[in-house]
């Protein structure tokens, strides 16, 4: 695994020159998106509603941001494109990192800054607007969720060649259902005594955790789960994406 800052910056420069037009069109599309939000907000008299802006921010970050992430290795759609990109003189890590810079760093920052500007603008018009603590907490979780989702999408972007957004959604759903199934099975095995048959639940009234466990869960389990989910999981997924790139063939 090698990383050379000069090659990395050359890759970024290369991508910028080659996809300059695409980036300009994308920026114009993003500007139109913001224009549309303002227009819709004006029509529905929601311009002074913080949650209205918040929901559009989430839309820009997740469905749009993740779709762009899934298309980040656009060259892979054809055999010729794969040959050309994979044989570029840069390491697999540099190739992944240079594209991640656009979708994991620049895009979220750009969207956040644009929303912050628009929010600030409308807050000056409607002083009653404001972000409460709950919204701040949701925002924090959303940003972490974006990083994790984006890391998963990165694996799909490297692995799949064609129809990547569709295949990514299908894979996500398949994994989601598998995870639900697995959780249910594990839960039923762990709490065997509380179940009778496949669906019926017994002794529900006695299944309330005691105060000691609640305290342990709040102070230990939740922070550990958050650490794993927020920091370990994305790194783990990035490592998988790196190996997928290393194993990538035409």
């Amino acid at each position, binding site marked *: 695994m*090698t990383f*050379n800052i000069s*090659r990395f910056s*050359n*890759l970024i*420069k*290369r991508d910028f*020159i*080659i*996809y*300059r*037009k695409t980036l300009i069109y994308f920026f114009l599309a993003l500007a139109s998106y913001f224009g549309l939000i303002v227009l819709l907000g004006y029509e529905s008299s929601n311009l002074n509603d913080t949650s209205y802006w918040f929901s559009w921010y989430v839309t820009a970050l997740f469905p749009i941001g993740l779709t762009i992430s899934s298309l980040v290795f656009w*060259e892979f759609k*054809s*055999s*010729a*494109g*794969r*040959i*050309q990109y*994979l*044989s*570029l*003189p*840069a*390491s*697999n890590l*540099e190739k992944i990192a240079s594209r991640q810079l656009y979708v994991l760093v620049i895009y979220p920052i750009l969207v956040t800054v644009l929303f912050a500007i628009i929010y600030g603008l409308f807050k000056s018009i409607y002083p009653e607007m404001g972000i409460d603590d709950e919204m701040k907490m949701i925002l924090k979780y959303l940003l972490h969720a974006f990083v994790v989702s984006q890391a998963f999408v990165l694996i799909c972007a490297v692995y799949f060649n064609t129809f990547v957004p569709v295949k990514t959604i299908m894979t996500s759903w398949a994994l989601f259902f598998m995870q639900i199934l697995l959780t249910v099975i594990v839960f039923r095995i762990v709490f065997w005594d509380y179940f009778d048959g496949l669906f019926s639940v017994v002794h529900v009234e006695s299944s309330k955790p005691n105060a000691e466990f609640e305290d342990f869960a709040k102070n230990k389990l939740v922070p550990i789960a958050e650490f794993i989910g927020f920091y370990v999981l994305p790194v783990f997924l990035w490592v998988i994406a790196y190996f997928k790139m*290393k*194993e990538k*063939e*035409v």
Partner: protein
Amino acid sequence: MITIEKLHFSYSKKKSLFTDLNLELQAGKIYGLLGKNGTGKSSLLKLIIGVLFPNEGKISIEAFDSVDRRPEILQDIFFLSEDYELPSIKIKSYVNANKALYSKFDEAKFYEYLQMFEVDVDSNLQKLSYGQKKKVLISFGIATNAKYLLLDEPTNGLDIPSKSQFRKVLLAGFKDDQIMIISTHQIRDLNQLIESIIIIENGKIIFKKDVFELEEKLRFTKSLSEDSGSNTVYSESVAGGYIHIQPNEEGIASEVELEVLFNAVIKDNDVLNKIV
């Protein structure tokens, strides 16, 4: 140097493309990689550059495994594939985008080669014809001064004057420390260019000889009749008569007819291998 040891490769479990293939390529030579359709010429080039992985065996470039795709090796490799995609940007922008990735890239030489190919440097790549795009890529590839130039069907899509320009550009840019592998069906286009011939058949290298060696040991003669003597190992009808391959017992040098040689090897490589 490129070394291929005990290479096994297949796209499916049912049929192997290469079985126990061994090959060593030395610097300073232009190799012609020949074979019938589907024998794996393009796949072999892709395996060498590391965009396909062997099932077994090893391909080493300067002692490094090709599957590692090490950047320091990749910057010394230029692969021109038969199909390629070029962005919708001007040639100058394309060069600006890619030149920094190849440390030995010679921009002046690139424009010189483009001029030899008569391609307008202000053109947008997307607006060029297939052949013109190929000329840009060939020029770029040679200007990278990469040690390993791998060209897959480079003359496909080139018109007759361009084929001659292609030979000139290649010879102008080729250096003694380089290895050039040209995979082609159009042997005649490269008759005076190729220095060593590699023929693949049934997943193996069945013939690998230098052209000077062939000139020394084989004699290619033309006659009007099919019968040319008892020592003829192969005859083929061509326009206006026949070409025969015979052992060069008299020591008279004759130009190697690659197409005839290829057909002879495919028909019976043992006879030719014994002579050469």
